[in-house]
């Protein structure tokens, strides 16, 4: 006997809201991406707990795909952050309102 499922779900919810806070409050693209990683990890914890609760391996299979999606998201996101930084010299999301270069108005 380990713990009730609801305690695992509570841990997952706390982790998810911490990641949400990180994504919403930080003024830094890198920290926002870290917040998304925390949220994905919280979802993985919930899936593992559900997998143990129902004695099914479906939940663990979903966690494999969560890992693949996290790797994809972080590689594309970091490449985009590098591109944004090289173009404007900053990673503040408030300054990044256009995806292309604005003529005569370097932000």
């Amino acid at each position, binding site marked *: 006997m380990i*713990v009730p499922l609801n305690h695992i779900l509570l841990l997952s919810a706390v982790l998810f809201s911490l990641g949400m*806070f990180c994504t919403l409050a*930080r003024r830094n693209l890198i*920290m926002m991406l870290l917040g998304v990683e925390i949220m994905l990890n919280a979802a*993985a914890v919930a899936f593992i707990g559900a997998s143990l609760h129902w004695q099914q391996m479906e939940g663990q299979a979903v966690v494999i795909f969560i890992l693949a999606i996290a790797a994809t998201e972080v590689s594309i996101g970091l*490449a985009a952050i590098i591109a944004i930084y090289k173009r404007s010299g900053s990673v503040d999301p408030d300054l990044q309102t256009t995806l292309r270069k604005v003529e005569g108005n370097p932000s």
Partner: protein
Amino acid sequence: MSMLTILFYVLALLIVTATGLAVTRRNMVHAVLYLVLSFFGSALLFYLLGAPFLAALEVIIYAGAIMVLFLFLIMMIRLKKMPGMFFPATQWVPAIFISGVFLVVSMVLAGKYTAGWTPLPAAQAPPKAFGVYLFQTHWLSVEIASMLLLIALVGAYVLGLRVRRSEREERS
């Protein structure tokens, strides 16, 4: 209280503390290192909850690959000191409100599930059985995930190419 129960609560405390420290650090390198600690705790939690293969993958992919990628990025970028407050009040007040509401709603929803209050028995999915299951029932999803990783590779390359071309234009 068995030993596994105490272990679960200790790990939960470790994970939440490390993540809470990570999201409030001003220095990004410290934040990433705290997050590595949090992911190690998650890996131990996965092992405790009966997923030894996923525990290994969590250490290799999350704590290893992804966090090292973040560290490389932080070392490549030189950030100027941001003027003003670290957390502007117009940003952290709504952020705390939204995440607090989410926490309350999810706790209420989880608490209403009465079957979830009985303690779970300890069980383990052996890695071999898990691999056979994954490739027998979810082989199409595995192929789609590998296509997704290929798309990520090509996308990151194209983004890097654009950076290099715009640098050349600025030089000429």
